[in-house]
């Protein structure tokens, strides 16, 4: 009896597999045509929309959606409409590759993703195999673009951020004795820290304490702060995400450690944290390419649309995704690609074009890309005054 049931289940399994194949076939036959038979560009997106990192994936999903809607309303790319599909990867490299394959079956021609570094490295290896054009909004690890000439970044690489932070602190004589608190279990955080410490030593900054924490142990930072205090740090460098940073700021206040804090783009979003006294973040400096309360028309327009559609203030990830879609558009127009080109031909054309464009986006003015895939834009330093970012 049980044998029969297991047989049945096996049959069911094979049946589901076949059903899956059937679906795939129907979608691939009209890969670059929309439901009504018109040619379209198909842009895919990947990121975590469930699980602990869902904030970032959702921001990317929504930011890119706004850009796609705007482009379609304005007549599309080269007069061709854009279709957009976003798949969840749960912040897991294996799931991210599955999401990539799902999008490929859907007929994706260009990819905006993956959102997180680890996933992006795994997906980039696959997209390089297929020679598909990929722009990652926020995969900041160097390994995302290393050796993959089809992958381009909108965000700074982690080492660049680390070096830029050390340079900024040293060149503006903000402090000479620096402490670092970083998440050693996080790619982003440890990536920035490594380069920061190397650059800081060269620039003559003294690192009095380099204290690590891990993802499993990130609620109590008093020990790390006490060490920084005992070391006489004039500035604490926080290459971490804002959730932990709010706790550090609170605990520094509790133990009476009055010092300067300096962070990277991960701190963006700190003012929106619920139940966080923004007065504690007063005078915190951060290097971020995007500030939601900037007054230029582009940012204002984007923030208004985002708030209206999704009921929250966009963070830097959303802005990066928005720029990623516009970077694809600019490159596609420069290269003059059409929707009936093969994925590989399209990628070759876009590769040549993206190094020639200069894009004014939300996260930077006059952004350019080199052939390695790195973006070139100016890091903007802001300081928090009266609960708002002020340019430094």
């Amino acid at each position, binding site marked *: *009896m049980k044998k029969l049931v297991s047989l049945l289940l096996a049959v*069911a399994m094979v049946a589901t597999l076949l059903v*899956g*194949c059937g679906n795939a076939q129907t979608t691939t036959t009209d890969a670059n045509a929309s439901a009504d038979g018109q040619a379209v560009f198909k842009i895919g997106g990947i990121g975590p929309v469930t699980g602990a990192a869902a904030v970032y994936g959702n921001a990317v999903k929504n930011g890119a959606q706004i850009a796609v809607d705007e482009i379609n309303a304005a007549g599309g790319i080269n007069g061709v409409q854009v279709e957009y599909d976003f798949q969840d990867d749960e912040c897991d490299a294996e799931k991210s590759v599955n999401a990539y394959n799902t999008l490929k079956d859907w007929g994706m021609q260009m990819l905006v993703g993956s959102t997180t570094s680890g996933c992006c490295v795994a997906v980039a290896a696959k997209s390089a195999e297929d020679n598909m054009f990929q722009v990652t909004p926020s995969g900041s690890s160097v390994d995302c673009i290393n050796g993959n000439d089809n992958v381009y970044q909108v965000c700074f690489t982690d080492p660049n951020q680390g070096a830029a932070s050390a340079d900024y602190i040293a060149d503006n004589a903000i402090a000479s004795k620096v402490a670092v608190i970083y998440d050693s*279990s996080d790619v982003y955080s440890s990536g920035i820290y490594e380069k920061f410490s*190397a650059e800081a030593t060269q620039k003559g900054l003294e690192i009095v304490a380099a204290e690590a924490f891990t993802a499993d142990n990130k609620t109590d930072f008093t020990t790390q702060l006490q060490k920084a205090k005992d070391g006489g740090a004039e500035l604490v460098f926080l290459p971490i995400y804002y959730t932990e940073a709010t706790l550090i700021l609170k605990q520094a206040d509790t133990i009476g450690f009055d010092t300067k804090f300096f962070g990277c783009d991960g701190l963006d979003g700190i003012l929106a944290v619920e139940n966080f006294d923004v007065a504690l973040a007063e005078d915190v400096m951060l290097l971020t390419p995007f500030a939601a309360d900037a007054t230029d028309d582009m940012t204002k327009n984007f923030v208004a649309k985002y708030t209206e559609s999704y009921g929250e203030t966009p963070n830097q990830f959303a802005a990066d995704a928005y720029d990623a879609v516009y970077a694809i558009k600019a490159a596609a127009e420069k290269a003059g690609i059409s929707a009936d080109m093969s994925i590989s031909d399209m990628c070759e054309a876009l590769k040549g074009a993206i190094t020639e464009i200069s894009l004014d986006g939300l996260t930077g003015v006059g952004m350019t890309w080199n052939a390695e895939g790195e973006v070139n834009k100016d890091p903007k330093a802001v300081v928090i005054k009266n609960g708002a970012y002020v340019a430094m």
Partner: protein
Amino acid sequence: MNKQLKDNLITYGIIIAFYAIMQTLSATGSLSSLFKGLLVPVCVYTIMAVSLNLTVGILGELSLGHAGFMCIGAFVSAFFSMCLKNSGMNSIVRFIIAILLGALVSAVFGVLIGIPVLRLRGDYLAIVTLAFGEIIKNIVNVLYIGKDENGMHLSFTDTASLNMSADGEVIVKGPQGITGIPNDSTFTIGIIVLLLTIAIVINFVNSRSGRAVMAIRDNRIAAESVGINISKYKLMAFAISASMAGAAGALYSHNLNNLMAQPKNFGYNMSIMILVYVVLGGIGRIRGSIIAAAILTVLPELLRGFSDYRMLIYSIVLIVMMLFNCAPAALELREKYSLKRLFGKKLKKEEA
């Protein structure tokens, strides 16, 4: 042909049929990219389920740290492949050695962990294995290993403290893990490893040692009284289980370009996920584990059409499957409307 042999042949048959169908579909180009991409993960998780079934079903001890062994196998094999990446070695030979090495090191850890752990029983053992899995993940996350002309460098703090020469290469980069692993895992190798795993488990269960292990599971005191060396047989089963998890880890790491030890892939969530495969497929039933693991690996991907409700539906399917398999009412219903009975009746009628 006895019942045992027939049963085993069905298990092998299902896998070989699955392989044949997938290869045919792949050759005719009718297999979607998603399914092509899922073939290796399906092998990985079925091997994990079969190997955990050895601990949970045959040995009768609840282990919640199985992902830890997978993690060891994944990192050891990936490290090995990275070291010999540019040596000009044949990639298949290199990969086979990597799998064996991953399995071997996992087995060694299985014995090391087993010595203290298997003195515990039941819940206590479960908690200790849970802790073990987390320890492995955390150690890997602070591990930095680099290679230059002076040999290997090891550090537990950061890459700077490795003191590498300028042209040295950092292979294991703490939380950033190992990047650039050659993509050696193929469906064929995955299926071969899976068949080997099943052969090992089935033969172990039907061997003298296997019977001793099951005797310990069923009644420890009785087993001890007839002179069975409890520690030896427990360790044996535990080490075999660990080594197969290590082999699965090797397949896993060579399927992706980069390997990081994160809560998602090597944390206790993964250990519990594998336990779910085992429980759902039936504790102690090898074929059940294979089918459950294959279905549950593919299912979340098939549900992508439901977008945001995907994981919700996935959990509901889990509950329904569990009820269907184990609830008394469902068992009764299945008995009543079973195909066998329907066919049986028909046959009887025809005979009449």
